[in-house]
């Protein structure tokens, strides 16, 4: 049984592609969320192993969601992603409780597996 994943992104086309990519590599996508608030509720309910978390969301941003997930004690492996380059966010990625950051242009199931190992 592969690891369970929650995909958090406000763009449906990206969520669909990411689901296809992860499932083809053995991950089990247990849920999707289009904003930060929904993501927190879904993580609390679904207890995924991994949260693939877009940084730019309509309400809370990805850093805030990561901090609240860590504070809730649910402690899934958090993978931040964005269509921006990691350098655009300065040291915020390093300061967040997330496992790491993968730009959307480099996103693959293998990259996630390596990051959360």
């Amino acid at each position, binding site marked *: 049984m592969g690891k369970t994943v929650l995909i958090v992104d406000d*763009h449906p086309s*990206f969520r*669909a*592609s990411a689901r296809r*990519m992860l499932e083809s590599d053995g991950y089990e996508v247990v849920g999707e969320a289009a904003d930060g608030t929904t993501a927190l509720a879904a993580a609390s309910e679904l207890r995924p192993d991994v949260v693939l978390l877009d940084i730019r969301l309509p309400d809370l941003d990805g850093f805030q969601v990561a901090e609240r997930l860590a504070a809730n004690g649910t402690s899934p492996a958090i993978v931040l992603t964005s269509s921006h380059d990691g350098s655009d966010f300065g040291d915020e990625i390093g300061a967040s409780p997330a496992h790491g950051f993968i730009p959307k*242009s480099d996103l*693959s199931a293998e990259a996630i597996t390596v990051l959360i190992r």
Partner: protein
Amino acid sequence: MSTPRRTLIELAAFGLGVGALVAVITGDHNIHRGAYAALTLGVGWGFTGTGLYAWTRQPTNNVGPLMIAVGFAGLLKALAFSNNSVIFTIGSLCELLIYALLIHLLLSFPSGRLDSAVDRVLVAIAYFNTTVVQLAAFVLNDPRAGCSQCPANPLLVGKSDTAAGVISAAQLDIAIAVLGAVVAILYRRWRDSSPDQRRGFAPVLTVGGLSFVLLMASLIVEQAGLSGSIDDGLTLALFGTLACLPFAFLTGLLRFRFSQAEAVSSLVGRLGDGRGRGSLRDALAEALGDPEVELAYWVPSQVAYVDADGQRMHPTPKGKIATIIEHEGRPVGAIVHDADLADEPDLVQAVGAAASLTLENERLGAELRAHVDELRASRARIVTAGYAERQRLERDLHDGAQQRLMALGINLRLARDLVTSDTEEAAALLDASLDELNQATRELRELARGIHPAVLTDRGLNAALNGLAGRSPVPVELVATPDERLPSPVESAVYFVVAEALTNVARYAHARGVRVTVVRSNGHVDVQVSDDGVGGADPAQGSGLRGLSDRVAALDGRLELRSTGGDGTTVRATIPCG
């Protein structure tokens, strides 16, 4: 005042004067016929003549009509010397009315208005005392009792010496009290006057005050029961001062006129010395005697008045009056002054005329400052709009094409991995990728068109406007478009005016059709977008039209919106295009 009215008054004064003269000369109960005749005509015709002059000079001021009324009352008073009982009665009833009118006139000089409640009460009491109380005493009094030559009283309802005496005594007391109060008020008015005002007031208050002192003394003598030579002497002296009074008013009015001429002369001198902003206002304030005077400058391009700093202002704040000043037939501004100066329109106009050239110069400065302020605000809005536009572009790119390209990348990587093991799935992924690619291309095209439509650059305004019309959900009739190419900034402004207007029509107007007209003539391009929708658009709402207005203003053009409820909306832009 109209000529027929003036002639009528002159004829009536002449006729009444002749009647009064006859009554005085032929009356059997008069021992000073010559003196009374001369003084009666002096008072009657003197007041009437000076009153006509004052009324002509200041038609809105009540001083003129009041002086005429005093003149007529003075003539009517003399009828009491008549041997005819009816004429005698009329004269007797009107005998004291002149004093009430004089009190009214003196307390209202020079504005013609009774400004304080005390003044109004005193005048009301004076009128009551000289008409109602006079009538009450007269109907109980038989004049022949103390004057064997006097005619009978046709209004006598019952002789009662006691009642008539009580009424007359009360009338006398009231008259003395009122006169005392009036003299006190006139003294205070004199004391509080400025030196310039005193020059105008001096003859009126001196002679008027003396008249009332003499009248009061005469009444006190009468009340004390003294008669004979003292009473006669006081009466003649009183009549003498009354006969001088109209000329005192005339002198006062002339002095006020002279004072106005001096004010204009002084203003011209000060304008020559004036330096810097505010000097004109100060000079006008001094010339008009109104320290609160303000100046409003007319800015035709904004169809509004502005102050010296170029800020828009309401030309007639509460309690103020604006006198429009013209220069070479064009309005240049307004003097905003105290409402009291409405009684002296000649003064304000004369001062305004003297200052009109300086006012025009200052107007140009104020207009320039208003334009600078408008430009500064417009520039700030353009910068802000630029930031907002860049943010919108970044958001549109991020949310649109960029996300689709990211998804496309993922799909292509998956397809690459599956192309040998699962060709069917790989083909499905490639189809999905193509859809994403097409969608991303469409979104990028729309975005590029919003930044600057390529068709406008390549094929001109006509083709670009046709494109806009074709994409509009509301049918568009392109009535006219210029055949030739226009300067690029003008074409761009015209395109975005039409684009924004059509977007607003589609969103808000509920219209069945739109007409678009773009005409080049007389060095301008005139753009008009009219719909037949619900109207009621508010130009203050939304940043789209404001941004367009700034874009058009940057080319020295103007954008106007006409939108009344139920009558459609018209957006019109006029842009210089040499």
